[in-house]
């Protein structure tokens, strides 16, 4: 064990290996590792963002659902009210219409009755006269009824 020129040779080897590591080993590996670290960090951040987005979206959807339900309830109530109103209005209108029709028919009927009555009255008078004529033709006995006819003539 003596120190000799091997020392110089070994220093050269050492320097060569440091140079190889410095130029060809460490930088590419370090780059790959840093890139991977960046990718992992990005992936984690994206996952975190996605989770956050999901939370927001589910909250939004719940809000929307509740709002829609509220609105649907409102619309239903409104519709029921409206339906009631329409039914009421229809009922009123029908009543008015019915009254109108009833009144007009009643008036018509009265007119008709009146007309019939007056026609009847005329026919009664005619019949009465005709009846009277027949009776008169058979039974007139000018002698017997001269007094009555004379009285009628008197009256007419």
């Amino acid at each position, binding site marked *: *064990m003596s120190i000799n020129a*091997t*020392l*110089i040779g070994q220093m050269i*080897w050492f320097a060569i290996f*440091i140079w190889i590591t410095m130029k*060809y080993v460490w930088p*590419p590996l370090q*780059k790959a590792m840093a890139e991977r670290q960046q990718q992992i960090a990005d992936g984690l951040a994206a996952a975190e963002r996605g989770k956050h987005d999901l939370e927001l979206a589910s909250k939004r959807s719940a809000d929307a659902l509740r709002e829609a339900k509220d609105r649907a309830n409102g619309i239903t109530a409104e519709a029921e009210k409206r339906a009631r109103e329409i039914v009421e209005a229809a009922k009123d209108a029908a009543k008015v219409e019915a009254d109108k029709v009833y009144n007009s028919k009643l008036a018509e009927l009265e007119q008709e009755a009146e007309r019939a009555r007056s026609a009847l009255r005329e026919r009664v008078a005619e019949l009465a006269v005709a009846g009277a004529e027949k009776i008169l033709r058979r039974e007139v006995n000018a002698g017997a009824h001269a007094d009555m006819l004379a009285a009628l003539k008197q009256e007419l």
Partner: protein
Amino acid sequence: MSAAAHGEPLTATSYIAHHLTNLKVGSGFWTFHVDTLLVSGFLGLLVFGSLAVLAGRATSGVPRGWQNFFEMVLSFVNQQVKDTYHGNNPLIAPLAITIFVWVFTMNAMDLIPVDFLPLLSQKLSGNEHLPFKFVPTTDPNLTFAMSITVFIIMIYLNFKVKGFGGFMHEVFTVPFGPKLAPVNFLFRVIEDIAKPISLSLRLFGNMYAGEMVFILIGLLGIWQLPLALPWELFHILIITLQAFVFMMLTIVYMSMASESH
């Protein structure tokens, strides 16, 4: 015990000595430990080459297989760097990764049974006495080469971050104030010199001792079987720990160099 069929009688001493001898080329200072250079270089090229290939193919998608494993190791090292070093120098993380991965791989050579690779190399070379140490971190040349490189980077960072004036001010005034400038300077020199020495000797000592125990266990004949396994399991801990300690202290030194008091 290995190679009982040697021509000359194999003693315990020669077995140990043989295992602790490097394959040398050259003489004097210009001696090269071929085994250390080859094994450390081969392991480094293998592991950093495959790391470079894997890194080139790395995707930012789902990592699988080896990419997963290396990302885990490298981000563990990077986390240590981030926790300790608060400057912003692109050199520190690669430096720490290189140290951890390379030292761990070289230490891990210790886990291959102690006679396996030497015997293989002897058979392949045809030389029955070929010495070949397969754990580069048991060679102080390697540990000192690493710690001195770390030391140089540390000094460079000191100048770069604090500037010449700032660094000199720190060297001469910390910790006792400007009146005791020579003492401060002396303390600083001792402190800074101690850093690479302790760094390299710690790794060398641990691995050398661990290897030594393996060699001693190898001397026990049939009894090495029940002993080698527990020591091997325990050694996995030492291997990792030493790689981690070397890396961690380097980061600490770098952070001290980059922070002004």
